[in-house]
């Protein structure tokens, strides 16, 4: 019963039938047109009374008589109507309506559909319950297990036994650091006979600097972090310091509430530090359109909308952006409220409004924070002044040339001279920027002095020292007007709005400033039920594949109810109680018996709970794109473990950049940067590294709270044939060969490095047979040995074996 939530306890079969089979369809398929907000043909299906009253065609339902009910006729298409207009329901859905009407069209407890504010579980205060009583007490390691076991016991399912130690150390290492445990670490853990061996393992991993990388990458999905601007040109930007800020904040175990406040409003904190400003890169990860001829205001508005959408997804688990054009169809979010939240983000001093093309182009990345030596910055400023001076000289020259154009260049048939004449004829302040640039080009072609100035300016521009920078938030002193965009169209000004939050959530305190800082505090205030619920749900999701709420990005009425509501609230309350200490929460989950279960498939449990929502076992999870690379890097011994810094360029297949407007040069790094973790790979939104995208890394167009986990032939081609993979395999083979002299021991080592376990007898003999076969292959065709990058047939055969190992399903899976 746990999986359907408490709302159905103790209800009649009729009510259950309505709640489970009918209400969801009413809410999703019917109410858009026949609900609280819109009543097409005068009909609302939001309550039983309204249903009986009906619309223009009369009562929609005659309780007890499906055949006399217009609703059924419309659903079945047997009368003049066919509903819903999006296409008929499935036969079994129609049958559910028939049954419901036949049994009296009984309505559930919540009188109205949709389950608006009053019924929406997720906005209610967090209710901390005591861990439930369970029978199998010896299984329980901490309160998490009480909640999970209670669910299992209610269905008569046993939990799975604890995974063996080898699996546990590989699992925990991958989950916490994204790297494989070294065989020496595995051996030490196996040899540790203390009862707290596992607990200490977890402590060690939580202290690893790679913890921040692993969990930072999860956060960067949500933050839609990328190294380019998106849209058409997709030029490079500099914001990797934000990425490093996330890694460091997690490594230092910054309390999650501070983590939120600094990212949303670090620049507004009193005496904000550089670090706090860098954190605000969070909301500068929006895309920037560098295409010529755009309306700057339009894309500024898009960026602001994206900030609202991301705020909804990252903290509130609400689909705020649904209310951009109209009131939310299902959840209690009005269009006005959308623009109230919009107003918080509407004052950033960034490119927008109605600007000259050339002015706009020079402001694309602002606001930024620079990191330069004061001397160098001073030099830069003086060079800029020199350019200004030269430009004004050039302007004077141009005015002179224009005044004398007719004399100097009498009318003729030189196309460009005539073109210049036409433009000069236009008063200066009426020329477009394109006309200006055309004219300047002609002047430069025709007049040596003008051209010289150009080259002088160009030379100085090239000598301007490069000063490092990162994108940050900074507000305008005079806030912009915020107003409702009628139907989401920013050119149609509706009612004015002030910054504000949603009525359905705890009120915005009167004393708080109505700016991003106020919003940030509100997001993590003690009375805020959503942020801790959404946060803990996502932490849980990373460990078990799915969250307690499966729709991790939708805690609204269209989302799925939590599988373990009491557990979610317990975790959420625990997070707040422990002062938002994330590492504490990791510790709790990792030490639970629930997490430590074996992941082997169980037919008995699957019969009752096919998708393992009750967690009768752990889930096997394919590793994320970056971690697949990281695992191979750590197995090969090539990993450059440096944390942070500018993004890097590992090899990528030739031609990968061809499919976007600007084919960016990609010169693969040599040396350590070639072997950095996947999360440091330079990430272009329009042409991301194929090795990342093919394994479901999001392309950072918008906030992503859960990745797909696909399994495709193109992934197989990458793992088999990619240049990096071959490099990793070669290094892994070397490492294995160095470790032992005989084949059998080497096979043993290969398994221990890659899978943290020895091979079974069958596996051993299969790999042994493979190596023998490959040795023969190479020996009979010695020319191929060098091509395979080896010195002998045996060495080449070991590279082949290493390729096999890093292609195994188990290698790319956390078991």
């Amino acid at each position: 019963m746990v999986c359907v939530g408490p709302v159905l306890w103790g209800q009649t079969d009729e009510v259950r039938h309505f709640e489970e089979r009918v209400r969801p369809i009413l809410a999703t398929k019917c109410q858009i047109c026949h609900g609280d907000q819109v009543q097409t043909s005068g009909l609302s299906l939001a309550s039983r009374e309204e249903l009986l009253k009906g619309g223009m065609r009369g009562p929609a339902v005659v309780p007890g008589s499906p055949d006399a009910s217009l609703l059924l006729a419309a659903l079945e298409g047997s009368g003049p109507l066919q509903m819903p207009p999006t296409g008929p329901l499935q036969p079994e859905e129609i049958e559910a309506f028939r049954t419901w009407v036949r049994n009296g069209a009984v309505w559930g407890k919540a009188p109205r559909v949709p389950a608006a504010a009053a019924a929406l579980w997720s906005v209610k205060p967090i209710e901390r319950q005591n861990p439930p009583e369970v029978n199998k007490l010896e299984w329980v390691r901490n309160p998490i297990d009480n909640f999970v076991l209670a669910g299992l016991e209610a269905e008569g399912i046993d939990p799975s036994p604890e995974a063996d130690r080898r699996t546990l150390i590989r699992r925990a290492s991958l989950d916490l650091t994204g790297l494989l445990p070294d065989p020496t670490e595995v051996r030490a853990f196996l040899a540790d006979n203390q009862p707290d061996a596992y607990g200490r393992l977890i402590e060690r991993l939580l202290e690893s600097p790679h913890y921040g990388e692993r969990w930072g990458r999860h956060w960067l999905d949500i933050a839609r972090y990328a190294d380019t601007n998106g849209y058409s040109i997709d030029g490079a930007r500099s914001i990797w310091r934000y990425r490093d800020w996330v890694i460091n904040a997690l490594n230092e175990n910054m309390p999650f509430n501070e983590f939120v406040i600094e990212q949303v409003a670090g620049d507004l904190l009193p005496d904000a530090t550089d670090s706090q400003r860098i954190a605000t890169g969070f909301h500068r990860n929006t895309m920037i359109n560098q295409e010529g001829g755009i309306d700057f205001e339009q894309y500024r508005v898009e960026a602001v909308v994206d900030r609202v959408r991301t705020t909804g997804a990252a903290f509130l688990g609400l689909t705020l952006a649904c209310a951009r054009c109209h009131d939310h169809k299902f959840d209690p979010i009005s269009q006005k409220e959308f623009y109230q939240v919009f107003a918080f983000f509407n004052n950033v001093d960034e490119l927008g409004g109605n600007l000259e093309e050339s002015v706009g182009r020079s402001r694309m990345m602002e606001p930024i924070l620079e990191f330069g030596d004061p001397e160098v910055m001073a030099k830069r400023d003086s060079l800029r002044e020199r350019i200004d001076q030269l430009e004004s000289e050039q302007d004077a020259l141009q005015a002179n040339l224009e005044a004398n154009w007719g004399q100097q260049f009498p009318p003729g048939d030189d196309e460009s001279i005539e073109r210049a004449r036409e433009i000069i004829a236009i008063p200066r302040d009426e020329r477009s920027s394109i006309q200006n640039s055309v004219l300047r080009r002609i002047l430069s072609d025709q007049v040596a002095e003008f051209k010289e100035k150009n080259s002088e300016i160009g030379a100085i521009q090239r000598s301007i020292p490069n000063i490092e920078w990162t994108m940050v938030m900074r507000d305008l002193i005079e806030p912009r007007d915020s107003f409702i965009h009628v139907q989401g169209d920013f050119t149609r000004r509706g009612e004015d709005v002030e910054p504000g939050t949603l009525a359905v959530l705890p009120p915005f305190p009167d004393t708080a400033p109505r700016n991003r800082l106020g919003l940030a505090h509100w997001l993590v205030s003690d009375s805020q039920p959503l942020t801790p619920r959404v946060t803990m749900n996502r932490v849980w999701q990373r460990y078990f594949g799915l969250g307690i709420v499966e729709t991790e990005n939708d805690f609204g009425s269209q989302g799925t109810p939590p599988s373990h509501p009491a557990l979610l609230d317990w975790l959420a309350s625990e997070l707040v109680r422990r002062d938002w200490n994330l590492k504490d929460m990791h510790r709790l989950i990792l030490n639970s018996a629930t997490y430590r279960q074996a992941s082997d498939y169980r037919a008995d449990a699957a019969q009752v709970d096919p998708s393992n929502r009750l967690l009768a076992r752990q889930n096997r999870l394919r590793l994320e794109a970056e971690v697949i690379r990281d695992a191979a890097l750590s197995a090969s011994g090539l990993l450059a473990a440096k944390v942070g810094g500018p993004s890097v360029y590992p090899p990528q297949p030739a031609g990968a950049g061809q499919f976007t407007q600007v084919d960016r040069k990609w010169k693969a790094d040599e040396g350590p940067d070639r072997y950095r973790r996947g999360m440091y790979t330079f990430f272009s939104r329009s042409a991301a590294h194929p090795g990342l995208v093919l394994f479901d890394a999001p392309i950072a167009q918008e906030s992503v709270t859960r990745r797909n986990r696909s399994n495709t032939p193109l992934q197989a081609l990458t793992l088999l044939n990619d240049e990096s993979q071959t490099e990793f395999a070669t290094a892994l083979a070397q490492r294995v060969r160095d470790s032992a002299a005989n084949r059998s021991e080497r096979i043993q080592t290969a398994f221990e490095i890659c899978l943290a376990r020895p091979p079974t007898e069958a596996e051993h003999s299969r790999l042994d047979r493979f190596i023998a076969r490959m040795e023969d292959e190479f020996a009979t065709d010695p020319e191929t040995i060098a091509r395979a990058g080896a010195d002998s047939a045996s060495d080449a055969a070991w590279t082949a074996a290493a390729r096999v190992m890093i292609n195994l399903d188990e290698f790319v899976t956390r078991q």
Partner: protein
Amino acid sequence: MDLNRTLLAQRTRRQLFEDCGVGVGKVALTSLLVGDSLYSKPAADARGIHHQPRAKSIIYLFMAGAPSQFELFEPKTELQKLSGKTLPPSMLDGKRFAFMESFARKPPKLLGTVRKFAQHGQSGQWVSECLPHTAQIVDDVTFVRTVHTENFNHAPAKIFMNTGTPFFGRPSMGSWVSYGIGSEAKDMPSFVVLQSGPRGPRGGAMNWTSGFLPTAHQGVPFLSGGAPILNMSSPEGFESERQTVTIDAILDLNRMNMEKTGDPEILTRIGAYEMAHRMQTSGPELIDFSTENQETLDLYGAKPGEKSFANNCLLARRLVERGVRFVQLYHSSWDHHGGPGESLTKDLDEVCLSADQPCKALIMDLKQRGMLEDTLVVWGGEFGRTPMGEVRDTVGRNHHIDAFTMWFAGGGTKPGQNIGETDEIGFSAVKDPVHVHDVQATILHLLGIDHKQLTFRFRGRDFRLTDVGGNLIERLLA
């Protein structure tokens, strides 16, 4: 089979069907269940999912940059007469254009074309001298002259044409089709993207993203010239037999772990490796044009090994022959503002020269092979160009969203027609306007899909390609 196995098999297939992108229809499921190897059978048969399809595949010729209808397809006597006259400012009220300032400061002047037009074929279609080859296939083609869109910048308009919304993160048409009816290709992805011309499409991967649909449905870019698929070639020293032996070892070891853990996902991975192996063999064969006779190569103007639109058109036919569902060719650049490289004279000539003959060849070749009947060919850009001139180095035309021309052939369309009519200067539709959502709805319809029923639940809402719009272009249907 014991119960454990049965459950496992069922679960695997369901999972495959959910995660791996082989279709949502009941048909897809059935055919999977009879398949002996998970990847070896087509996922959906040719019956479509909502009704009898007219087309099995689509070749979408995306003319990136937005071709000028006034130089190619739309002769307008009135516009010729008024050329050089200022457009009445009232016509610009409430309109937004790219490079708005160039129009806002000084009302733009109308621009007639210097290109000669003639009527062609039995159907008497107007095509300009720029496209002499296209002029020869007009009886197999239907022109829709009143397509209109909502975005006037390239990248957002391309994303709109492909995903039905200007918002990011939504799936592209090819992904929807792949998700809806799966693939008939046993060793190729179901959605392939090709590119030619001086630059790739603006927005890149955002144009063929699977958005919130399973990632397996994303478009797969094929490279021109060498190996079409990234990482298709085995590493040096590990080719052919050695690769086969390697994959055998991987799969055997995976099967052993399957026995141990019982995770059906491992079967899916085994299937993926089997297919990857087949792709490695079939890839070189796909691009080996030596199996084409000289006549065909000449028809397209294809030269083996070259990166060209001609080669891509031929490749598209070969992909469709192999069961690929959706082939999208981007060809650039049609962006003729009048600046350097963007003139309506020699730069337009150049792109026409590269695009014209292969288009004709594709239609003729498909036709003579009996493939045109069930292959839909679509030609068009992300928007059109203004009847007003835009003055840069030369006089070009700006982006225009109110009316532009696309053409359709084969795949259950009724050929030789003209659909839609624009006003005297070609500014807006006066008869039969066709929205981008209508184009999308019609394409899906021809593939056997009801655009209103092909939905995916994400963040609490059922999304579809055509958002909340889309009407069939009834007259286009045969």
